[in-house]
Structures are given as C-alpha cells and as structure tokens.
C-alpha cells in the first residue's frame, strides 16, 4: 500500500540523525536518508521521524539512492 505525502512537507523534512535531505520512496511509503542509511516509515499519511522506528537500509539500497 502506498501513501502519499505532501510535497510542501517533504521540502522541509530532513533526517533527524544526519540532518541530510530525504528521498521519498513511494512504493515502500518510506522517507530514505542515504547519508545515515535509515528509512523512516509513513504511517497513516504521517511521516514517523523517529530513529527508533526507522529501518536500516541495505548496502544495495544505499547504492540505489546515492
């Protein structure tokens, strides 16, 4: 299931760990930070910008984004 996220919101969100910009992965409903290697879930249309809830991305994924 993909969830959409507001463009205006995406423009002002950064990774809370690296402070780097995020890439929106529409298929997985995630906001991905290539710098920290963390993917933040979007649940019920709300981005969950907590390190404790983020997924560590694989090396392959990291290459895809950088």
């Amino acid at each position, binding site marked *: 299931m993909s969830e959409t996220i507001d463009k205006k919101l995406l423009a002002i969100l950064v990774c809370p760990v690296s402070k780097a910009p995020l890439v929106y992965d529409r298929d997985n409903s995630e906001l991905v930070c290539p710098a920290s290697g963390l993917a933040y879930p979007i649940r019920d249309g*709300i981005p969950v910008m907590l*390190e404790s809830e983020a997924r560590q991305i694989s090396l392959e994924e990291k290459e895809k984004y950088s």
Partner: protein
Amino acid sequence: MDQDEYTHFGFQKVKASEKAHKVAEVFHSVAGKYDLMNDLMSGGIHRLWKLFTIEMAAVRPGHAVLDIAGGTGDLAAKFSRLVGPQGTVVLADINNAMLRVGRDKLLDRGLSQNLEFVQADAQYLPFPDNTFDCITIAFGLRNVTDKDLALRSMLRVLKPGGRLLVLEFSKPRSSVLEKAYDLYSFRVLPVMGRLVAGDADSYRYLAESIRMHPDQDTLKHMMEDAGFVQCQYHNMTGGIVALHKGIKA
C-alpha cells in the same frame, strides 16, 4: 544525557532510556479524552493560557510555525488561520495517538491546506537549520527526557530573529495558593482522571511531573544556556502556569 543515567518520571526515578516509553503509555491512555480532561481539570482556563500564548507568538501571514508536542492541535488550529495560505504550520508530536486525534479534529474543521503533521522527537527535530519563524511547545517540555537537548534542537531550527514560546505548568507564587493547588492536584485530579478517562495513574503522573519541572527562573536560565536571548516569562493564574519566551539571535 547518558541513557543509563536516572531521570524523573513524576516522583519515580527511572532510567533515562525508559522515560520516553513511560510517557508514551500515559498519552496513549489519555489521547481520546485529552480535550475533555483539559477543560474539566482547569475549569476551561487552559483556553485563556493558550490564547495569551497565541498573542505573544505574534504570528503573521506567510510565517512558518512549528507546534511541538502539539497533541490535539489547539494552538495549530489558531496558527493555521493566522499564517494564511502562504504560511505553514507543522504540528509535531512524539506520540502517534495524540497526533491522530489532533489531525482528525483539524481535518473535521476543514483546516488542512497549510497544516502538516509529523511524528517527531523534540530532542532530534527533523527539520533543516533556520526553518521556522516561531516555535511553540505547550505543556510538552515537562515530558521531554533531556530538556537542554530539546531547547538546543529548537534553537537550531528557528530562523534568526525567530521566537520560542514555552507554555508550561510552573511554581505558584504564594504558599497559600500552592497548598490549595497541591490538595487539588493530588486528591482531586487522580479521582477525576479515574472517573472521566478511566485512568488515575496517568493523572497522578501529571501532578507529579508538574512538581518536578524546573521553576520559572530555572527554566529561563536553561533557555539562556541553550543560546536564546531576550528570555523572559509571564506568570498566569498566580504562577500555576508560566509562558517563557526566548529569541534566536
């Protein structure tokens, strides 16, 4: 703060790493009845405290405003009207239950055009430096594990010249008021919490956490230490609540 260090959860001492989880339990439990309980507990006066906060925020059309621990969205709703279609209001809360209650309420009122919702930790805000004209945190700082870290994070995301407003329970000015307030908080509130929200413990935590929160001058110094300038506070309802203001230079 080291995660193995101890911190306060109301009057209990808990590991710093456990506090966030325990606070989350409180707000998951009370989210659905939060607005009703605020009205009952304060006799509606919380609305006046919030109105004064909005006055002091001096938000104008086009501004970007961040409401941290914005929970059920009282301040965000007002800011949404003040900033207009060119402005942005971000409602951030660490608790997803509170955030959902807030979003549903604001969407029901037709306020969504300039409102954004983010689940975020005040200590590690997910925004670039120099983003917001104004940040508010109403009855939220008390629940944050490391307040110094949170104040620095807020300073970082404020624009130069931007203002932080902290609305929080504080220390009553007179001892007579303090005694009456203690009686009310520790005898009446938990009973009210049990009857209305079905949860006495959460409201006991509320009363205890208020007593453990830094008083007016301590919080002012904490803001100055974090790097805010022109820090000042206004007592309301005899100091039961105080509004602190600080500016980013």
